[in-house]
């Protein structure tokens, strides 16, 4: 309980009349690699977006690193957090988007160095050196001067990963990082994510439809269904012997 780096405590999220998350309880331990699978519209992205502070919550408490993410403790009461608190909390997390969301008017190098310079206060030179290391890590050392539109989707997503890593997050969120890619480009991105999964300290939360990959890298797999975790367990348990019918149906449909 206490070594949870992420904890959702009865979190409610609504969009108008639609309750997307209904008193969700969910925990991730420090360094854990967790995959989230489940049908479209089940609230997978919403969980990540709440963590990245892109989406607020309507009930419950989200804890990151033991501190409430969307609340501040003031005079013994949990009050809605101000931008200062959110900024501080946000620095612990990084996100890789389905559509990459690179800045189209900036070179690859600039995409990666912009936030470290502006937010972390790194010098251009230090940010540059760090970006070169990261580009090396994602296999794009020779693409620094290109613009996003000059790269393939797979390359763009690897830049997206490098950009997120440049902020040194302790939690990295992946929202279907390969869903927008042509099939032949999926492998190169998964290779990079797989390499990151070997890092002991990095906590990873991955929403994906790549079942084989999820099975390989995850410590735990959660099956989401209608805003609830219908079933969770080790990849072995969940993929080979799911106990819920819904899980079995979903896996059958997606593996066929």
């Amino acid at each position: 309980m206490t070594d949870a780096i992420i904890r959702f405590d009865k979190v409610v999220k609504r969009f108008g009349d639609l309750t997307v998350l209904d008193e969700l309880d969910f925990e991730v331990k420090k360094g854990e690699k967790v995959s989230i699978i489940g049908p479209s519209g089940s609230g997978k992205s919403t969980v990540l977006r709440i963590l990245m502070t892109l989406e607020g919550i309507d009930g419950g408490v989200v804890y990151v690193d033991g501190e409430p993410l969307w609340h501040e403790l003031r005079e013994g009461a949990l009050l809605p957090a101000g931008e200062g608190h959110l900024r501080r909390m946000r620095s612990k997390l990084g996100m890789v988007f389905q559509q990459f969301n690179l800045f189209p008017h900036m070179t690859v190098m600039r995409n990666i160095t912009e936030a470290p310079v502006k937010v972390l206060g790194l010098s251009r030179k230090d940010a540059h050196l760090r970006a070169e290391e990261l580009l090396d890590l994602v296999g794009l050392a020779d693409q620094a001067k290109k613009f996003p539109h000059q790269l393939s989707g797979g390359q763009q997503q690897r830049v997206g990963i490098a950009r997120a890593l440049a902020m040194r997050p302790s939690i990295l969120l992946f929202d279907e990082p390969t869903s927008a890619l042509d099939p032949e480009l999926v492998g190169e991105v998964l290779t990079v994510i797989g390499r990151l999964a070997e890092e002991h300290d990095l906590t990873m939360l991955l929403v994906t439809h790549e079942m084989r990959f999820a099975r390989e890298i995850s410590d735990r797999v959660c099956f989401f269904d209608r805003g609830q975790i219908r079933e969770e367990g080790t990849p072995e348990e969940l993929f080979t012997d799911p106990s819920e019918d819904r899980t079995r149906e979903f896996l059958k449909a997606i593996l066929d």
Partner: protein
Amino acid sequence: MLFGFEWDLTNPLNFAISILPILLVGMWVTIQATVLGFFVALVLGLVLAVLKSAQSRFVAWPAKLVTEFIRDTPLLVQLFFLYYVLPEYGIVLPAFMTGALALGIQYSAYTSEVYRAGIEAVGKDQREAARALNLSAANTFTHIVVPQAVPRIVPAMGNYLVSIMKDVPVLSVVTVLEMLNVAKIIGDRTFDYLVPLSLVGCLYLIMTLVASAGVRVLDTHLPKQGLPLK
């Protein structure tokens, strides 16, 4: 004689040549009014765009109302308002200033929409990426939104520059001696309207072509790598 220049009525060509310098004086006034009006439109339009996109309804609503009011009333109404009403409250501006201001106010309603559309065209995905990277709102605006919005804004603003130029003759009703007014005075005095008005048409054509070309040059030199432009 006007502005110290005499005209030569011996034949149309000589007439044209002799009044060209007079018309050029008027043209210079037209250009000044255009530039000043455009400048006011750019600044005021930006202010209106920012106000209209404000979170608070109490700020956004009045700004929207003002924009709508400006857009739905003729330029001449605003011009008369500034020219005849302001002095009643002790604000007396030269006719030229009043005119340029009226042009700027009228067009700020349009430019504010251009700004807004340009800013809105920068997708939510960009703002979310910036937020995920913890960039401040100010940094997001200046380094992510503005550089992507400007290339979208410039061509539309160029069109309004030309429109303002073509609206300058309206200022003649408050005695501004812009080019058309000058031509009309020459016509009144010589009973030959054909030559001065034809010249005004030609000079206008030259001005608008030059302005459009300038906007196009600016446009092609703006960095817009990878921006999905139509």
